[in-house]
């Protein structure tokens, strides 16, 4: 039971990292990213390959994961910079699908649908499974704390203020002399880097990555986390991630109580609940549990 709780808390940490990454992209800069699962997968595979195939240390794997995800995020956002946000929505969604295709088909690189097993975790050999779960949980919560601190500083900095200005009115921000294009690409890359880090952390914790894990559903989970927690609010992103894990894990316990349902029906029901929850939250409380509070008081809109 303790081991289960620790593992769940670790997953919550992974989700929190994803929500923090999305918060930079969508919450602060107002850019859409519907390919979260793609960046997550990119990070997971990059770090897995770096450590398994090249034998690099885990820390270096994490850095490579961040770099690869950030770079591809920067390129994708650069591509649609002159167009309305709708195009970025389509491109990122397509990106997520293509990454999954590559992961499933480039068998020489990714081992196809079997996935890459045996990804090293920190001190996995020297610890009992329970101790390993405790250590991973602690490390992930530490990573979340770090990511929280850094994105919160980002939000309070003049750079964060400029991002908010770009989000709210791009033309006005450009007139005020802000380098709108550069900042947008940078913000997307920073957020994508966090998404990649989340993927790498996931890979080292579960020791196996396979294309199945990166379904577009993940994107909805994280959007729900961020929207429920409070778009643009760093603490809200973390809170929302934990909330989504509670809903997901909680529904596992309710499922056996509903008799006569097949496994597929149970899974379908859970996804129906998550999707409905996102629409309902957007409708009745679009600002989320913790509304965004700009660091300096501004007059009400």
């Amino acid at each position, binding site marked *: 039971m303790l081991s289960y709780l620790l593992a769940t808390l670790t997953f919550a940490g992974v989700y929190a990292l994803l929500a923090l990454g999305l918060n930079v992209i969508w919450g602060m800069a*107002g850019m*859409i990213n*519907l390919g979260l699962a793609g960046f997550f997968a990119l990070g997971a595979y990059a770090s897995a390959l770096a450590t398994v195939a090249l034998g690099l240390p885990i820390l270096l794997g994490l850095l490579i994961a961040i770099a690869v995800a950030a770079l591809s995020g920067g390129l994708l956002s650069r*591509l*649609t910079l*002159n*167009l*309305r*946000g*709708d*195009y970025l*929505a*389509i*491109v990122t*969604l*397509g*990106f997520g*699908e*293509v990454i999954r*295709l*590559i992961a*499933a*088909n480039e068998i020489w690189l990714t081992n196809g649908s079997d996935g890459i097993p045996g990804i090293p975790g920190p001190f996995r050999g020297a610890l009992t499974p329970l101790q390993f779960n405790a250590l991973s949980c602690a490390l992930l919560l530490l990573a979340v704390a770090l990511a929280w601190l850094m994105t919160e500083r980002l939000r309070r900095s003049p750079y964060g203020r400029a991002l908010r200005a770009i989000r709210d009115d791009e033309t006005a921000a450009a007139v005020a002399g802000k380098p709108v294009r550069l900042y947008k690409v940078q913000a997307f890359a920073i957020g994508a880097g966090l998404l990649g880090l989340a993927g790498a952390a996931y890979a080292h914790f579960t020791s196996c990555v396979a294309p199945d894990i990166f379904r*577009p*559903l993940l*994107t*909805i989970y994280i*959007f*729900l986390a961020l*929207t429920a927690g409070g778009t643009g609010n760093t603490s809200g992103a973390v809170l929302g991630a934990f909330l989504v894990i509670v809903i997901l894990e909680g529904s596992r316990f309710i499922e056996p109580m509903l008799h006569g349902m*097949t496994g*597929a*029906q149970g*899974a*379908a*029901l859970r*996804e*129906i609940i*998550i*999707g*409905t929850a*996102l*629409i309902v939250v*957007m*409708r009745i409380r*679009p600002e989320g549990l913790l509304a965004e509070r700009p660091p300096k008081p501004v007059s009400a809109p």
Partner: protein
Amino acid sequence: MDLLPQLLVNGIISGTLLAIPAIGFTAIFAVLRFPNFSVASHATIGAFAGYAANVWLGLPAAPALIAAFLVAALVGLVSDEVALKPLRPYGALTAAIASIALTIVLENMVRFGFGNDLRGYDLPLVRDWRIAGVRVGPQQVQNFALALGIMAAVFAALKFTRIGKAMRAVADNPTLAELKGIDPVWVGRLTVFMAMGLVGAGGMLLGLGTSIDPLTGFRFILPIFAAAVVGGLGSIPGAALGAMVVGVGEELSILVLSPSYKSAVGFIAIILVLAFRPRGLLGERAY
């Protein structure tokens, strides 16, 4: 044997089928100004409604296609009223996110009812025709003809009917259209009904060639988006042209890429068009 003519024929047929849902997607974008990703689930719903009419009621493919259209159109209208319309004032991107959530909900409702099994339509088995070394199935030809008929009806409706003219007016300039007494809310509803109906019919047409499961619609979203973006997002003739480019491109890609990357061709097409001709081949004007 020469592969090229066969691939071209296959590509033109699949491009024509793809044009039907792509027109639906781009029409919603033209009138309501947001990318409605729930086309994925509506294509699935159409495919399953057609399956129910075909296998359970024993109807042939063409009447089953009407069932696919109507069911998807109704689900599209109701789900839009309930879930998406109230969120549109918050902006196109908010509505786009909600439409992904909606797709997950609807797709899983299909999964809840039908399970994950692959299902095949009940079609008469006929021998393929061979014309000048090119193989085509009579069913393929029928699907192609049906898709062409639907497309002709769409273009005629847009050109000649009051509703079609009203849709084009709203797509072109909503404020001016409203001044002229066109109710944008009703035009929006009609657009969603017709567009999701097309997407449903398209889902069935694309499913007729293979077997269907709850993910059928999702598998086609990349080519559908690609068709719309390549032709110019919001342009209905553009979607038809874009679908042709993507359909033929997917088939020709077999010459250089492994067949499992067929659906990635759409993504490559999107990237190329955005890099070199961002407004698409025909620009963004609706018609």
